[in-house]
């Protein structure tokens, strides 16, 4: 609720034009013409940053950050004090602290959270219907992946504890990858799976 008020306040004063957004994309590219890819990648990194900070609405905060930077660039014509990434990071920190102080977060859950609180959201305590939905969406999203991706992610999760670690090592060797490279490849697939599962679960709600 508070978030939308903040956004509305900013939007009321300033709205990105096509020209300003084009200039913003060029500034983020920093000389390399990525055709918007760097913007999307930067946005994803900002979302991850806000997720790590435990924000409830990481996507909104990433957009808020980018909008503020865009606005600053539009108003001042250029930003020479910092690199685009650093300037975005500084802005993101301000946005984060504003969010933290706004009281929108769950009753300072960060201060009081403990394992017991977390367990309340643990799937063990969830109703069967929700688990079933998640399982169905996972199956559906796995089927969307390419065969290679599906094989990799299934292999990555196969086994338990020590067996899983050994299995991952075997998979990495089979694919001629280091463990790190395998983890990063699996991570990218999992990120896509998560997005797909989230959309799937929401579409069923």
């Amino acid at each position: 609720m508070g978030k939308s008020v903040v956004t509305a306040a900013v939007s009321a004063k300033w709205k990105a034009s096509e020209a300003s957004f084009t200039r913003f994309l060029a500034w983020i590219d920093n000389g390399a013409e990525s055709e918007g890819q760097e913007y999307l990648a930067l946005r994803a990194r900002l979302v991850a940053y806000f997720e790590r900070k435990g924000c409830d609405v990481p996507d909104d905060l990433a957009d808020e950050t980018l909008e503020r930077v865009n606005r600053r660039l539009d108003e001042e014509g250029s930003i020479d004090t910092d690199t685009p990434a650093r300037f975005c990071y500084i802005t993101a920190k301000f946005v984060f602290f504003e969010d933290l102080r706004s009281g929108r977060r769950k009753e300072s859950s960060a201060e009081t959270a403990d394992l017991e609180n977390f367990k309340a959201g643990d799937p063990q305590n969830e109703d069967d219907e929700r688990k079933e939905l998640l399982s169905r969406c996972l199956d559906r999203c796995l089927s969307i992946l390419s065969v290679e991706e599906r094989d990799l992610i299934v292999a990555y999760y196969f086994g338990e504890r020590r067996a899983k670690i050994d299995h991952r090592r075997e998979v990495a060797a089979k694919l001629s990858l280091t463990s790190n490279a395998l983890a990063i490849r699996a991570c990218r697939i999992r990120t896509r799976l998560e997005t797909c599962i989230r959309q799937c679960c929401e579409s069923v709600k």
Partner: protein
Amino acid sequence: MIRANRLVIADGNDAVRMENEEITQKTIRSFLIGDLDEVAADALDERSIADQGFADRIAAEQYDLVDEWVDGRLDASDAKAFGQVLARSPSLAEKVKISKAMMTAAPRAAVVERSSEATFFQKIFGSIPKLAYGLAGVLLLSAVAATVFFVRKDKVNEISRVELPINGYGSDVSISPTPVVTPTEGPSTRESVSPTVNAPGLANSNAKKPTPEPARTALRSFVALTLSPPTRGAGDVRSVKIDQGVEYLELNVQTESETTGRFVIEAADWRSSPVRGRGQKGVTVVSVRVPAERLKNGLVTILLRDAASGSEIVDEHVILIER
């Protein structure tokens, strides 16, 4: 636990310094469980925004931490610290749920993968050059043609009606996307349909190519699947790919059951009306068409029940539906 209650912007040198250092996995893990001091954490945060490769490393490490937390592989202090991180992050909590679901799904999917791996014989014969197959095919066709010619040479008019023998019992799974003529009753028809001539594995010597009436029929697409011998459980899972536009899965279930009456086939939540089996050389074939839309992707159990008793399961197969 949040350490940063005041805004600290590390000077650019911190990030540069961190960039130039080899940041170890241990450092990243400490960062993710909230165990780094504020300035160091700030530098890593900044680098995670500026450096895609580093952001990937953090994301991968975060997933691994989630997996280890779910698996109970973290030591007590890390588990407690990471539990606190999880508790304040809705998106991480979501990752935990997905991680648990993946751990449940992986063994199931792996069973399917193993079953779809090439068999020993496939591996052996897979190495034979295609030329050899071609030669063998030509020889086989020549032999068939010669046989037909000598046996039927005094019945020339009948040659055009001779049909190639269709494989009998013992054939395994055959999948053939083929245009066929749908029954005039339309897609809701659940009764058995005559096997099409190009559905291998059916011991039906009377199968003849239908001669459709154009005004009453339409070309449709289907996948024919012959299941034999019966398989119980998920140890021998066949996969069926249903391409876009395919409307039916034609199931031909072969059984050695002594029952020669009527059967009911169940596939997922779809159930046929009683269907009479066709007996052939001690084998009974039961055919139905299942609307493809009723079969969701994933493992589907096919049950063949004796319609008379209503509950007796005669055969059971598990197949994997893919699209």
